[in-house]
């Protein structure tokens, strides 16, 4: 189906199912229960899962396949956001023209930056992309203020032209009248599920993005990119020119980043320069590595993982900790609270840094490798009985590339 092998089709169907059921799956605890903090099924967070998933999938096409570590992908994220907000300002609040523009402009940006940066490899390439991204960031803050509105961030004002704005058109981002922030809430005996239009819009795009990356992974093009990662010399002496391949990968991943940036602005009609800062590039690197660079599912898992912990860990506060550990003797509770403080609330970055270090040290293949190791463990347990698990693990990661 869709030019995919049977295994990949099953894989894609599972991903589609999981994505569509996210609002339910991420809401396992009843509302008001002590564990409700760990629910992640609210629109804002789910949108981020999908959007950063797209960002990481795109980044993985470059880094995971070719091994070129770009420190400048945040620039494309920012460009995408600005494009969408500009389309709001000039046309109307329909997100579609903006997203198309976001993909085009970020593609052009990526072409220009990639064309120059890809003349070098290794850390020199990383530094070149970093330099370009930091230049874009600094310029967006200073001289490009007419385009970016500097520190305030770009947003829609009442005196903007909005030439396509109809009489009754919504005053917030929408897709032909479907307002992004609208949700349908379902209350099922204590469980509260939110089905948000914005999330489903992002989810559909994310699935398309994932499908596209699946096709790239299975294509001769994807194979060439992996060949570039392992041996450029041989590639040259095989009659292939690495540059157009890496440039194409760079532009494709730049367009993914632009799309992700555009979606950020489609969910919340605001674009700020801080999205272009190198720490944002660092974040997508963390996501990709944490999940497993070069694997299909890894970047998405990594993005979900980081965004989940960012939101959940940073929400945890003393009252909640007390609620959990209050039953313990005072001394032990105090000790636990003291230690927990390092990892929750405002300090959640520490948790992220530590987790990230642990992954790089012990699990260079990321979460996907972890899952594979566990899968292998099960398979070894019951070589005969382990059939279904083994099959599931293989479906999670078909092909030798993973």
């Amino acid at each position, binding site marked *: 189906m869709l*030019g995919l092998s049977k295994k990949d089709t099953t894989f894609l169907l599972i991903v589609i199912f999981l994505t569509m059921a996210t609002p339910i799956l991420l809401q396992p605890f009843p509302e008001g229960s002590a564990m409700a903090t760990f629910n992640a099924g609210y629109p804002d967070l789910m949108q981020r899962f999908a959007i950063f998933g797209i960002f990481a999938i795109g980044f993985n096409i470059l880094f995971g396949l070719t091994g070129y570590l770009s420190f400048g992908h945040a620039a494309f994220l920012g460009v995408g956001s600005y494009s969408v907000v500009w389309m709001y300002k000039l046309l109307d609040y329909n997100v579609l023209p903006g997203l198309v523009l976001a993909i085009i402009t970020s593609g052009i940006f990526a072409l220009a930056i990639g064309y120059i940066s890809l003349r070098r490899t290794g850390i020199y390439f990383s530094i070149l992309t970093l330099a370009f991204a930091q230049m874009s960031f600094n310029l967006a803050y200073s001289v490009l203020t007419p385009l970016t509105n500097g520190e305030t961030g770009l947003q829609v004002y009442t005196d903007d032209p909005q030439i396509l704005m109809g009489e009754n058109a919504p005053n917030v981002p929408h897709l032909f009248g479907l307002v992004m922030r609208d949700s349908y809430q379902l209350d099922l005996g204590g469980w509260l599920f939110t089905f948000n239009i914005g999330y489903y819009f992002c989810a559909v795009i994310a699935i398309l993005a994932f499908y596209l990356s699946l096709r790239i992974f299975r294509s001769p093009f994807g194979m060439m990119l992996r060949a570039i990662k392992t041996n450029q*010399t*041989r590639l040259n002496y095989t009659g*292939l*020119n690495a540059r157009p391949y890496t440039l194409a990968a760079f532009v494709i991943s730049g367009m993914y980043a632009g799309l992700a940036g555009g979606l950020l602005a489609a969910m919340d009609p605001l674009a700020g320069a801080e999205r272009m800062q190198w720490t944002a590039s660092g974040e997508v690197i963390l996501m990709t590595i944490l999940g497993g660079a070069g694997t299909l599912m890894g970047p998405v898992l990594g993005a979900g993982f980081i965004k989940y912990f960012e939101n959940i860990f940073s929400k945890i506060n003393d009252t909640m900790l007390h609620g959990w550990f209050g039953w313990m003797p005072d001394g032990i509770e105090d000790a636990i609270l003291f230690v927990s403080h390092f990892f929750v609330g405002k300090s959640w970055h520490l948790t992220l840094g530590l987790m990230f270090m642990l992954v790089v040290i012990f699990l260079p293949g990321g979460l996907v490798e972890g899952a594979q190791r566990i899968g292998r463990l099960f398979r070894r347990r019951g070589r005969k009985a382990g059939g279904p698990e083994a099959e599931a693990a293989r479906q999670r990661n078909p092909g*030798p590339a993973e």
Partner: protein
Amino acid sequence: MGILEVKDVNKRFGGLQALGDVNLSVAEGSVHAIIGPNGAGKSTLLNCLVGKLIPDTGSVMFAGQSVLGRKPHEINQLGISRVFQTPEIFADLTVMENVLIPCFAKRDGAFRLHAFETVANETEIGEQAEAMLADVNMLEKRDMVAASLSRGDKRRLEMAMSMVQQPKLLLLDEPTAGMARADTNNTIDLLRQIHNKRDITMCIIEHDMHVVFSLAQRITVLAQGTPLVEDTPENIKGHPKVREAYLGEAH
């Protein structure tokens, strides 16, 4: 007129004259060996042929076209394939993928954005690659990751990768370097078999006289960057100039 014509090639590295007035003609369909003691300029000459180095003066013509100034991938597209002294393969890819890549390069040229095709659906290319792997007796290893192959298998894989492109000229840089005698003999058989079956012109740079005299139809002896003699193996054996060049060399 040979398929490869090297005329008056000179190459200097600083004060060292690596190649001096090298003239060489490789006849189409032949196996031509270039031998010479260490530092004779064999590798430099080879690098000039594949575009890694550019000679200071002289010309290198391949099938009527100059290769000078062309990049390695362009020269490969002209029909010259190279096998390295230490096998250069795509270590992270499977054996099958290693052979598929040159097949695609042969069909599509230096670059084609085939992001919407699927490798598995390219049956024609797949069959071509499988036939090649069968030729080098590696079909049963097709799904192994290349890095896990033995050294001999890596070299056979590299030869398969070069051969599957059906090059007009195959350059081999010490194809038996560091091999045990049995492996060397296998390689010789393999090369002879390939030469007979596919009729590929070969140019072998070699240290091992056993290999050279088993395969070559013509031999060029290089010493201190200059060709001393070029002749058939029978005449090279016991040629006074060659003895002189190799005197003191442990061969």
